[in-house]
Structure formats: C-alpha cells, structure tokens
C-alpha cells in the first residue's frame, strides 16, 4: 500500500499535484470558516436523508416484534475501502444507541479482523451512553470471513437463524447485496444498505428499501453527530461539488477553443 501511494504521487504531474493541493487547502479553509460561523449561530441546514427514517422505523419495528436487528460492516479497512468502513462504524454508533435505547437486540457482523476492536469500542461507548451493561452480549459481535461471498453466506445464515427483522449493511456492500436481499425477503426483513463502491451499486438501489448511495454514506456518517463543525464540513463539501460541476463546462469550452490543459 505504501509504495502504491508513493508511486502514485511520483507519477502525477506537478501541475496536477499543485491543483489538487490548492483545491484541498481552499475547501478545508472554507470548512473551517463555515464551522466558525456555525459556532456563532449560523448553523447550516442539511437535509435529512430518508434512510435515517428507515433506520429508526426498522429498529422500532424490531423492538415491537422482539426480534433482533442485524448490522453488517462490509469491507476490509484498507486502501480505498477504508473510508467506507470508517463511515460504517460511525453509522453503527447511531444504530447501536437507538437499539439500546429501544431495548432491541443488535447483532453485529464484520468482515475484517481489524474492524473487531473498533466495532467493540463503538458498541461499548453506545452501551455507556444509552443502554444498560446487559444490553449487548459479546456473542452478538461476530467475525465472518474476509471473502465477500462467505461473508454474505454467514450474513444470510445469521438473519435466518436469529430471526432478524432488520438488515442494515454498510461499507463495501457489493457482491453481498443480492444474496442478503434474498435472506431479507425470506425473513421479512427491512433492508437498509449503504455503499460508496461502484460495483453493484445499481443492485443496491433496486434491491433495498432504503439506501445510502455513493457520497451519502459519508454524509450520513457526518450527520450522526449533528455538531455544527461536522455539518460545516458537509456544507463545504457541497461547495466543492458545485465547483467541480462548474469546472466541467469551463474545461469543455477551453478544450473546444484549443487551450492545452
């Protein structure tokens, strides 16, 4: 991984590196400015994602039925997938707090051994905050397999044998979308999935009840805390996207005029 990053930096032309660096600094500075404004009371409005309502409905439904919620952290926290796993852990903290508050059993499965410690910390924190010490059993935090298909098979098995009514899968959800949706259908589960991984993202959109697609996964992770400074980064993120959108026609015109870029 180390060499990959160094080689990438060495292969990138200097003007591209410079543009990337300036883009980063400009929008990080903007984030800090918006965060400062938010602390003074100008908190930016961020639209609530519908999948949050889905998560709340699912947990409430499971609590009423006395059935567990299955939470799947897909992906190995390495390289490009790392941010997705971090976002999945952030969303886990929200789901865990809601579950423990509603006295609903939560089963957490993770694909990578490295995720184990972080997931445990997130759950311990949620227990201290919302639940009683007996609200989560150690046996409900389960390692499956690094192989995606075996991970999906284990997920299907857990949904079936534990009689779950809610299936929340976050992270690098791709090859396990359809197998999990089959288990959801068989068991009457509400399916909520989120992924920023391009492969199978169309299936994720079609086979789930609620979803976080692409950047929504990262935005959802930031929206959980509802802090002014975190929301400020989301607003800054929107400005960054607007800048990119504005840049596309400008570049197209420049190219059409024969400007070498």
């Amino acid at each position, binding site marked *: 991984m180390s060499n990959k990053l160094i080689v990438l*930096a060495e292969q990138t032309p200097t003007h591209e590196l410079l543009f990337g660096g300036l883009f980063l600094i400009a929008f990080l500075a903007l984030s800090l400015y918006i965060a400062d404004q938010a602390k003074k009371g100008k908190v930016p409005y961020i639209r609530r994602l519908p999948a949050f309502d889905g998560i709340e409905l699912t947990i409430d439904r499971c609590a009423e039925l006395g059935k567990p919620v299955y939470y799947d952290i897909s992906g190995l926290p390495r390289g490009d997938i790392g941010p997705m796993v971090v976002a999945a852990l*952030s969303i886990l903290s929200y789901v865990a707090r809601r579950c423990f508050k509603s006295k609903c059993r939560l089963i957490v499965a993770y694909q*990578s*051994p490295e995720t184990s410690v*972080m997931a445990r910390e997130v759950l311990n924190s949620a227990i201290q905050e919302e639940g009683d010490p007996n609200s989560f059993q150690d046996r409900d935090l*389960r390692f499956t397999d690094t192989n995606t298909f075996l991970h999906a098979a284990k997920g299907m098995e857990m949904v079936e044998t534990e009689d779950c009514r809610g299936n929340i899968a976050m992270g690098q959800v791709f090859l396990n979308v359809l197998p999990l949706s089959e288990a959801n259908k068989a068991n009457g589960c509400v399916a909520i999935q989120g992924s920023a991984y391009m492969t199978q993202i169309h299936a994720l959109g079609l086979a789930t009840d609620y979803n976080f697609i692409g950047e929504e996964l990262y935005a959802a992770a930031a929206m959980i805390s509802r802090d002014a400074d975190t929301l400020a980064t989301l607003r800054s993120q929107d400005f960054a996207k607007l800048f990119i959108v504005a840049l596309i026609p400008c570049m197209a015109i420049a190219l059409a005029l024969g400007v070498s870029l």
Partner: protein
Amino acid sequence: MSKTEAVSSSWLRRSELVVALGSVCTAILLINYYIKIPGITQLASYLEEWVIVVMDFGLILGFASIAQRNARNMTKRRGEWWLDSVALLVATVTILSNLIGGRNHPIFTFINVNLRGVGTPTMLSMHGFFCISAALRAFKFKSLQITVALGAMMLIMLYNVPLGEVIWPGIAPVAEWLIDYGFSPGSRALLMTTSVGAIFLGFRVLTGMEREAYGIRREKR
C-alpha cells in the same frame, strides 16, 4: 475512585490520544503526498509499514475473537456447537501447519486445496441461484425509473451475448451509445462526488471531528 474511573482516567484510554494519533498519522501521509521532505518521507514510509504490522495483529485478534466465541459455544453446547468445533479445529490445524512447515507443508496444502479451494467455488455457485432469484424480484416494472433501468440492462445483456446480434443487428451501436453516454458519465459523476466525500471524511479524521467511528463519546449531545 472506582475501577471504571481508574481505567477511563488512564492516559492510554484518553480519547484525545486516539484522535491525536489519527490526526498526526493522516497529516504525515498527506504532507508526504504533496511535498517531499526527507524526514517526513522516511516517517511516512515507517507508518505505512506499521499499517501492515497492525493489520497482522488485527488478524490475531480476529482469530482470538472467533476462537473465544466458538469455545464458549462448545462448552455450553449452544447452537450448532459441533460445527463451531470443526471450524476451530480446522483453523488451529491450518495455523499450526503453516507455522511449522510454511506454505508447502502437506497438511496446509491439503486444507487449502481440498477444503478452502473446493468450498469457496461451492459457495460462489450457490450464491448464483440466490442472485438470480433476488434479481428477478428486484427488476420488476414497479416504477418508471426501474423500467428504464430494466430496459437498459436488457440491451446491455443482449449486446454481450452472440444471441443479441442475431435478434437485432442494430443492437451494438445502441448499446455502445448507452455505455459511452449513459453509463460512463453517470458512474464518473458518482465517482467524483464519492471522492469528494472521502476527502472530507479524511479531513474530519485529520481535525478530530470524526469521533463516532472510534467509539469516542461527545460531552454534549
């Protein structure tokens, strides 16, 4: 002072330390990507090597976690405890044979070829049936959007098999147009926004805003 308070006041357990570690590591790697300073480059190189070491410790922890759970199920005869005992036995034998004789140890090779090598494609082919069934349910004419997606999917599918060209010779230009002007811009737009999202997630880690993923509680909520 209670035992819990004593543990939480330990400097090793302080949330600031976790956030600071994350921030410093991210900052070093980020600076090294843009500017080559000999000291920072060396440090970044060490950090990236440590990632591999930490990941290996993660593997050990993962095995310890699964062994603990399986052993508990076996002693209490809970659930499918006999399957847990087989899994634990196979895992232990695999690790021991690899430690003793390396990757060429006959027992390790046997397990890899005859258990894992056979089991993985079996699971893969089983999933094929689940995928077909799930796809059939997902791809129904439920709304206009799904109908459009279904139409595009059918076209691309037919384009990728020889039968498509036989049914309608004009399928190739239509499918290629869809790939070039429909799929590519859409996926690039999604990729760009996702990348921006990942950059800002990195920024939140760098500045210590991203605390939920580390299990760090905020004082005010």
